[in-house]
């Protein structure tokens, strides 16, 4: 009997968590979405009925994870019984809440549960009431999964994740398919309305699971074959891969359409900033929480220089004409220089500060900049709470994209596809600018990482005093990290300003700094592919899931805590972070893009020995 108590306890907790998710409003918000639906006939007409809704999926996941954590590697019958009991307990809790909730509210003086918990609505009770048999089912699934081989398990997990993701994002999939001219009729077997059909879900599940399983099975073989080939071949393969990725990226906006290009632009801005913060935090180990300050400086400088409404444009040299606004490309270097100077200046006071203090002081700087931008005092220069307006869009005069170029009378050397780039400001154009910026930033970061500067930063991060004893000038090294990081952020801000046309102080708040920090941590600190993955997950995904924007920061909080507890090295950690945080693992796969500076040390040593021999 004692064996069952933990199950019972866990079940109560699971039930509590689900009720909590309901009270927070998540379940209600999710109830508008379904993952899989079926066609049923109602009154003679075919009607799409939800088979698996998002709240149900969430509850299933919670119960599954909770039970999985409790099960031993080889569950016995007793465990299975316990697991079911756990699920039942959870269901009991939700059922009890559904029963008691409305009753609690019926007290005198018009007091309702809803006065305290605003989401304790009839809809919530309805949703919760539907979980009766989901939770024990999930528990059983957890037991069943324990008997499956690990590789099959991973494949199944991948398939499930794919179904969940595509199901939730199915409206986006539909938009993309439409944009690319895929007739609705041909996808009707797969997608219906805002969710997957049973057939679609099954195919997706099976396909992804199979791919994952096959990939895992043949990866070692492929790796071995690759390692066996001479380095020169590997280099060519690598270049080929990069070229392919390049082509794909260039073609991407064509297939993504305007809306999704806009999403990619958001991601791009954050990737750019993430790459910069990655240098400060990931390489040099200095926690900068005021990073948004440089973003703001870049944006405001661009605004002041290019907006016809700014004070600079109206300013006159005595006896002469007004200075007038400057073009984007001329203003861009100025923005970067301003950011670099700011980075150096703001870095000076924090040179001797310890990690936590450094974080708070930099946070303070970010807030000071925001307050100054908002202030009445600086309103003549920065526009105060009304911000800067009429920032002109970026012109790329020598590039037009569109085979309709000739028809529109646009005479340019390069015509790629249907979007005319210098027409109305299209997100696709900005995508290329951001892509260029990110490529430059990633390139610089990569080169720096494997250089003496990168090593100095890493030494700084590991042990400041000893680094100094190695002849590293701490002041210069730290300031350089700040300055380069600030440059990337300033660049991002400079592109942000014309994108938005009008900029306001409230766009430059602490949450952006936290956002960037979160994405480099979730993606993997110190790792350049990690920044991209982090941005896609923490910026791209929320953009696609706009309707749940209310819960975005809440989800961030949970993700940050959970990641720190279970996977602090991030999703694609750099080799250095992996070593630091998982000291017991052997040679980590880490990220391929940044090999250690010595490459295979033994090989080099051998080559060196050979050369000397």
């Amino acid at each position, binding site marked *: 009997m004692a064996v069952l108590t933990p199950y019972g306890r866990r079940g109560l907790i699971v039930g509590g968590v689900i009720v909590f998710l309901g009270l927070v409003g998540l379940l209600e918000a999710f109830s508008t979405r379904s993952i899989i639906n079926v066609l049923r006939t109602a009154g003679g007409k075919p009607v799409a009925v939800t088979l698996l809704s998002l709240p149900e999926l969430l509850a299933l996941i919670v119960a599954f994870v909770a039970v999985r954590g409790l099960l031993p590697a080889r569950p016995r019958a007793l465990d299975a019984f316990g697991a079911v009991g756990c699920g039942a307990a959870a269901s009991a809790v939700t059922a009890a809440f559904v029963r008691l909730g409305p009753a609690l509210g019926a007290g005198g003086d018009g007091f309702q549960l809803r006065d305290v918990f605003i989401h304790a609505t009839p809809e919530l009770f309805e949703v919760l009431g539907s979980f009766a048999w989901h939770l024990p089912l999930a528990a059983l699934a957890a037991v069943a999964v324990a008997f499956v081989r690990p590789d099959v398990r991973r494949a199944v997990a991948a398939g499930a994740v794919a179904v969940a993701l595509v199901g939730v994002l199915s409206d986006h999939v539909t938009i993309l398919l439409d944009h690319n001219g895929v007739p609705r009729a041909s996808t009707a077997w797969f997608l219906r309305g805002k969710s997957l059909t049973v057939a679609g879900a099954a195919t997706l599940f099976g396909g992804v699971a199979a791919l994952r399983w096959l990939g895992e099975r043949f990866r070692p073989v492929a790796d071995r074959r690759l390692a066996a080939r001479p380095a020169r071949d590997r280099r060519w393969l690598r270049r080929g891969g990069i070229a392919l990725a390049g082509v794909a990226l260039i073609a991407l906006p064509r297939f993504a359409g305007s809306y999704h290009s806009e999403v990619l632009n958001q991601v791009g801005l954050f990737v750019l900033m993430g790459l910069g913060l990655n240098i400060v935090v990931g390489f040099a180990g200095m926690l900068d929480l005021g990073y948004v300050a440089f973003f703001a400086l870049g944006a405001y400088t661009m605004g002041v220089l290019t907006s016809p409404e700014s004070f600079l444009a109206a300013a006159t040299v005595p006896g002469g004409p007004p200075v007038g606004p400057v073009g984007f490309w001329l203003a861009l270097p100025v923005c970067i220089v301003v950011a670099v100077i700011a980075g150096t200046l703001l870095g000076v006071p924090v040179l001797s500060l310890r990690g936590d203090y450094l974080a708070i002081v930099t946070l303070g700087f970010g807030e000071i900049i925001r307050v100054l931008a908002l202030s009445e005092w600086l309103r003549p220069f920065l526009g105060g709470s009304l911000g800067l307006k009429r920032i002109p869009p970026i012109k790329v005069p020598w590039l037009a994209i569109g085979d309709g170029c000739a028809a529109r009378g646009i005479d340019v050397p390069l015509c790629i596809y249907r979007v005319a780039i210098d027409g109305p400001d299209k997100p696709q154009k900005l995508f290329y600018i951001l892509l260029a910026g990110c490529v430059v930033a990633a390139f610089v970061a990569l080169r*720096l990482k494997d*250089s*003496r500067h990168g090593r100095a930063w890493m*030494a700084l991060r590991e042990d400041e005093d000893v680094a100094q004893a190695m002849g590293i000038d701490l002041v210069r090294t730290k300031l350089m990290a700040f300055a380069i990081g600030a440059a990337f952020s300033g660049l991002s801000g400079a592109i942000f300003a014309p994108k938005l046309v009008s900029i306001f102080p409230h766009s430059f708040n602490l949450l952006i700094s936290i956002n960037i920090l979160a994405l480099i941590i979730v993606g993997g600190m110190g790792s350049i592919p990690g920044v991209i993955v982090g941005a896609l997950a923490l910026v791209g995904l929320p953009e696609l899931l706009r309707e749940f924007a209310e819960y975005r920061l809440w989800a961030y909080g949970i993700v940050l805590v959970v990641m720190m507890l279970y996977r602090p090295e991030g999703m694609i950690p750099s080799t250095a972070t992996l070593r*630091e945080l998982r000291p017991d693992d052997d040679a980590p796969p880490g990220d391929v893009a940044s090999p250690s500076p010595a490459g295979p*040390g033994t090989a080099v040593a051998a080559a060196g020995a050979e050369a000397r021999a």
Partner: protein
Amino acid sequence: MSAVLEARHVTKRFGGLTAVDDMSLAIPEGVIYSVIGPNGAGKTTFFNCLTGFYLPEEGQIEFDGRHRLDGRRTDQITRLGIARTYQNIRLFPNLTAIENILVGQHSHLHASLWGVIFRTRAARREEAAALDEACRLLDFVGLSGDGDVLAKHLAYGDQRRLEIARALATKPKLLLLDEPMAGMNPAEKDTMIAFIRRLRDALGITILLIEHDMKVVMTISDGISVMDFGRKIAEGRPAAIQRDPLVIEAYLGRGAVEAVAAADGGADGQAASGDRPTSPDEA
């Protein structure tokens, strides 16, 4: 022979405690010089004063006859040609052995930001040369196959040698070794003794050593200073130090001095300090 390092009346206080008291020292070039003394005598603190980690309250430190060290920052001192290792090994734990050594070369690498980003020929050449040098140093300390191993995964003795390799990467003229033999067995100590000698002979580096093992000290040193309570109580060649009553008292107390004086009497002899060295004079 000019003095590579000359410390004059160096004093370091921490609040009410005088850790280093009027310490003066002159180390000629190309020797192996040891600073010994009981625990808490102020040896490591003195080292820290030499490397700029602490700012002495009084005194001057002169390097190579022309550079004043006191008041300089650590990285400046390193660039002048002084390197050190630490009592508790302080490698960069999450960098590989090769990376640790490469960091040591930092002050001798001059690639600019531009050069690094655009991989100019000069930058590439410098990087390749640095790698080559790092491998050589790795070989020199006997860690040839371990270039890619994380510093924290190396065996203790290997870590010590890596730390020395890293210090050598800074191309020092004077090398400060803080208890390099700590935790080693006799065989390892012998290897280390030979190694330190090689540093002096093959690379022409002057070595300043803090060490507790008397056998090692007496074997290897050309000159010894003895510290106690922050002050220098004796200085000279190993043989003289062994017989110095102040030294014996510092290590073993007054009673031992009398006991030795009574039992000993002779000129040749057995020392009474620390471990008994069997071959006191090999300098």
